[in-house]
């Protein structure tokens, strides 16, 4: 069941991205930035977490979850340390995507050549 919904919800988020590409003619950079911001706002409204519960990877794999987990990290620290935690806790939860991208990016640069 979760697999089915992961497919559907994940696919639908991608369709939103595709519509931004094709209908509004946004560049990938703009599209992804907008999606990340909407993920953060949805989490601020408390709507993203239920979506993750429902669709699993369908909601955690799209880039929108990046905004969501940034807010989560910030909120977690804010509960402990107040306002200052908003800044210090930002990467508490979501470091994995960025660190994996950096590490594998560098390894990729070491072993691969662009194919053209």
């Amino acid at each position, binding site marked *: 069941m979760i697999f089915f919904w992961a497919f559907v919800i994940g696919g639908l988020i991608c369709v939103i991205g595709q519509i931004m*590409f094709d209908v509004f003619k946004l560049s*990938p950079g703009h599209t992804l930035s907008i999606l990340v911001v909407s993920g953060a706002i949805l989490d601020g409204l408390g709507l993203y977490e239920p979506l993750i519960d429902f669709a699993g990877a369908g909601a955690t794999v799209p880039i929108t979850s990046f905004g969501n987990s940034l807010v989560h990290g910030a909120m977690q620290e804010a509960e402990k340390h107040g306002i200052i935690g908003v800044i210090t806790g930002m990467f508490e939860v979501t470091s994995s995507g960025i660190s994996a991208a950096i590490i594998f990016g560098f390894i990729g640069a070491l072993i691969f*050549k662009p*194919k*053209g």
Partner: protein
Amino acid sequence: MLTGHRTWIFENNPVIISTGTVGGPFEANGNIPHAFNILHDDMWLEQASFEKAQQMMMEEACQYALKNSSIQKEQVSFFISGDLINQITPTSFAAKTIGSPYFGLFSACATSMESLALAAFMINANGADYILSGTSSHNAAAEKQFRYPTEYGGQKPPTAQWTVTGAGCALVAKTGQGPRITSATIGKIVDMGMTDPFNMGGAMAPAAVDTIMTHLKERKVDISYYDLIITGDLAHIGREVALDLLHKNDINIPEEKFVDCGLTVYREDQPVLAGGSGPACSAVVTYGHFLDLMKKGKLEKILVVATGALHSPLSVNQKDPIPCIAHAVSIEAGSDVT
């Protein structure tokens, strides 16, 4: 000799005595593999970077142009060339290898005809004996320069074009056997406010039409004077738009006489979207394919209109429109002239 406002008539008939063309793997699979002197099956040409590979191709094209004639490297008066990459460094390094005095040009994809026009003008005015006029481009290097890293999975719209990997070079001389350069019209910047860098054909079409119309008017010839009007890299969309614009301006050119290098160089089933582009596109197709047809007697008079979109990644990001240009050079078969 200047006629009209911006057309040169070359009464001394500069001759293209030889040409050299180099292509990459994608071109080898294309529509006109016979047009190339050498086809590489490796995008890197065993160099350390795509830019060096492009430099290598430029050098090879010049070497083939010299080899196909009996001219020695030392006899070449000038090397006129340019490309798309940052401050045209691949061309400049190639110029270092060639060793001739060097004019570096930037006219994006119109560089090929701009350099040919300038070469013809210098020869015509007795300013030089032999001039190497060429240009090069490399698909991956251009992608990196203008768009995204080559391995980035961005989706290109159907209006996007595929930069040709290759280099084309013509050796222009005062006398000799070969097609003659009879006239040239230098283009003006035409800016229709188009901003989409993935639709260059649509942006460049008005520039091509402007140059073609000016050329016909100033040279006082009818469109039927030419066997073929060859545009540089308008591709599908640009070609259709240009054709419609010409018809709208009462220049009734039959569709089959209006060809585009960007559509000639690749097969229809290759994944090039709207068609080919890049400085090398008009250079290799004109020098390798159409001049060959001319030598075989299948063509008499052609007008090559190389179109260029003179934007940079910076200007696109700053939301500036794409300034476009087109340079036209007429080439006529001339075995009777020595």
